[in-house]
């Protein structure tokens, strides 16, 4: 789950890291008041969960509160990469001597967090790492031993920073690492971390993601920041079709019909499980098929849930037929899914034999499942037909009539 910059800044501030005075505004008038409180030149920054704000015109400068209100108006209206801004951040325009970078991410190979530090801030850290590897310091730290100051010191010293700057940076970096751990973040970045004329350091921008699985243990923080339980904060907002998919999944507790994602093709997919869905979606596309959706069934769903998902997909505009396919199942039952998808067709007054292009789910209770499919004349396949063959067959049946 991604935080907006104004939320991320608040978390940074609470962690004891110096930030410039800032305010959050959703109207020009609020922006004017925020600028007044700051009392000097300000920066107005669009609050969206996407990059490229500067290029899009989502960052503006103002010298007076009146100018701040004036500049905030258009920024509040500006859609960036399809996203309407949540508001604007009104920030002190700081006189920076030098920009640094400080961040923490997970290293899945070492299985520890790693602190990244650079004296070349203000640009993308991946770019710095590639072009100036000696300007990026890395320091892993333990998951069970307490975080120690020397670790922060090492990562700063690694890029050659010394003197008063080093001593001022160490507590900031240590707090940043502690903040990463305490808030179950998967990524946090302060970029730039500015050194001011007086030698002090201030966080000028912050970027962070909290792990979805850990949201429950940060309820208090999320509530204080005003993050609603229903805000997914995914890379893009869920569509109505995707929300309907979620409703199907939530309607009964047995099994999973998850991750329903909308695409614009004509082949409806009722597929599973995790790895199976990834494989099958690729397979349909490999054979020239255009999927209408992605989904993952698994965990032995009820007939009702399989039926609900199939109905949703069958009714999606543009869907001609559905393909019901999974990798070999051992927990989910073939007969239950067969009942669900056939029931969906019948209840929608559709002929299962015509609407279900292929049913390829081998495994648990397949003998019972195949009896059901046979009765309704649905083409089915056992494990001797590979996942790719099944996908190819589904695409063939729709006969390249893709839109």
């Amino acid at each position: 789950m991604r935080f907006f910059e104004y939320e991320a800044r608040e978390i940074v501030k609470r962690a004891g890291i110096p930030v410039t005075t800032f305010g959050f505004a959703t109207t020009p008038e609020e922006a004017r008041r925020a600028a007044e409180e700051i009392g000097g030149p300000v920066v107005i920054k669009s609050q969206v969960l996407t990059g490229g704000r500067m290029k899009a015109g989502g960052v503006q400068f103002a010298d007076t509160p009146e100018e701040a209100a004036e500049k905030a108006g258009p920024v509040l209206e500006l859609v960036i990469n399809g996203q309407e801004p949540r508001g604007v951040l009104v920030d002190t325009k700081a006189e920076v001597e030098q920009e640094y970078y400080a961040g923490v991410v997970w290293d899945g190979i070492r299985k520890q967090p790693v602190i990244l530090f650079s004296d070349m801030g203000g640009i993308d850290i991946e770019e710095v790492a590639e072009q100036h590897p000696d300007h990026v310091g890395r320091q892993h730290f333990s998951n069970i031993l307490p975080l120690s100051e020397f670790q922060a010191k090492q990562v700063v010293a690694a890029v050659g920073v010394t003197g008063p700057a080093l001593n001022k940076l160490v507590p900031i970096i240590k707090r940043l690492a502690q903040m990463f751990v305490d808030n179950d973040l998967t990524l946090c970045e302060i970029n730039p971390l500015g050194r001011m004329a007086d030698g002090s350091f201030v966080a000028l921008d912050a970027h962070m993601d909290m792990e979805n699985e850990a949201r429950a243990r940060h309820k208090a923080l999320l509530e204080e920041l005003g993050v609603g339980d229903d805000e997914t904060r995914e890379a893009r907002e869920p569509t109505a079709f995707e929300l309907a998919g979620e409703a199907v999944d939530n309607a009964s507790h047995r099994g999973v019909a998850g991750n329903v994602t909308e695409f614009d093709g004509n082949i409806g997919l009722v597929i599973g499980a995790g790895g199976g869905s990834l494989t099958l979606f690729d397979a349909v596309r490999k054979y020239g098929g255009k999927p209408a959706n992605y989904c993952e069934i698994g965990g032995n769903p009820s007939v009702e849930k399989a039926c609900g998902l199939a109905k949703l997909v069958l009714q999606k505009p543009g869907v001609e037929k559905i393909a019901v396919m999974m990798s070999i199942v051992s927990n989910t039952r073939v007969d239950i899914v067969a009942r669900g998808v056939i029931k969906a067709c019948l209840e929608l007054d559709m002929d299962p034999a015509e609407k279900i292009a292929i049913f390829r789910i081998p495994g648990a209770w397949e003998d019972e499942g195949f009896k059901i499919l046979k009765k309704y004349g649905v083409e089915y396949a056992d494990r001797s037909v590979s996942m790719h063959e099944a996908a190819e067959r589904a695409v063939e049946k729709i006969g390249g009539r893709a839109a």
Partner: protein
Amino acid sequence: MRTDAIFIGIQVDDAVAGDAELAKRLDEACPVDIYDGSEGVVRIRRENVDECVLCRLCLDASPAETVKVIKLYDGDAVLT
């Protein structure tokens, strides 16, 4: 009494359908809530009949031959 859904039919011998004890046992045994024993008689929740997982727990909970689970998709084969 007999209740048929799309895939599964449930038949309970009328001679035992009024047995409160049996109704309670069936209600507790069925993992997908097909039987409702709350009113002291065996009732069948039609909307759940197709959820039957063929577990046989209702057969074990009732006197022989009094409860039948019928597979409508398999030539009305009776679950044994």
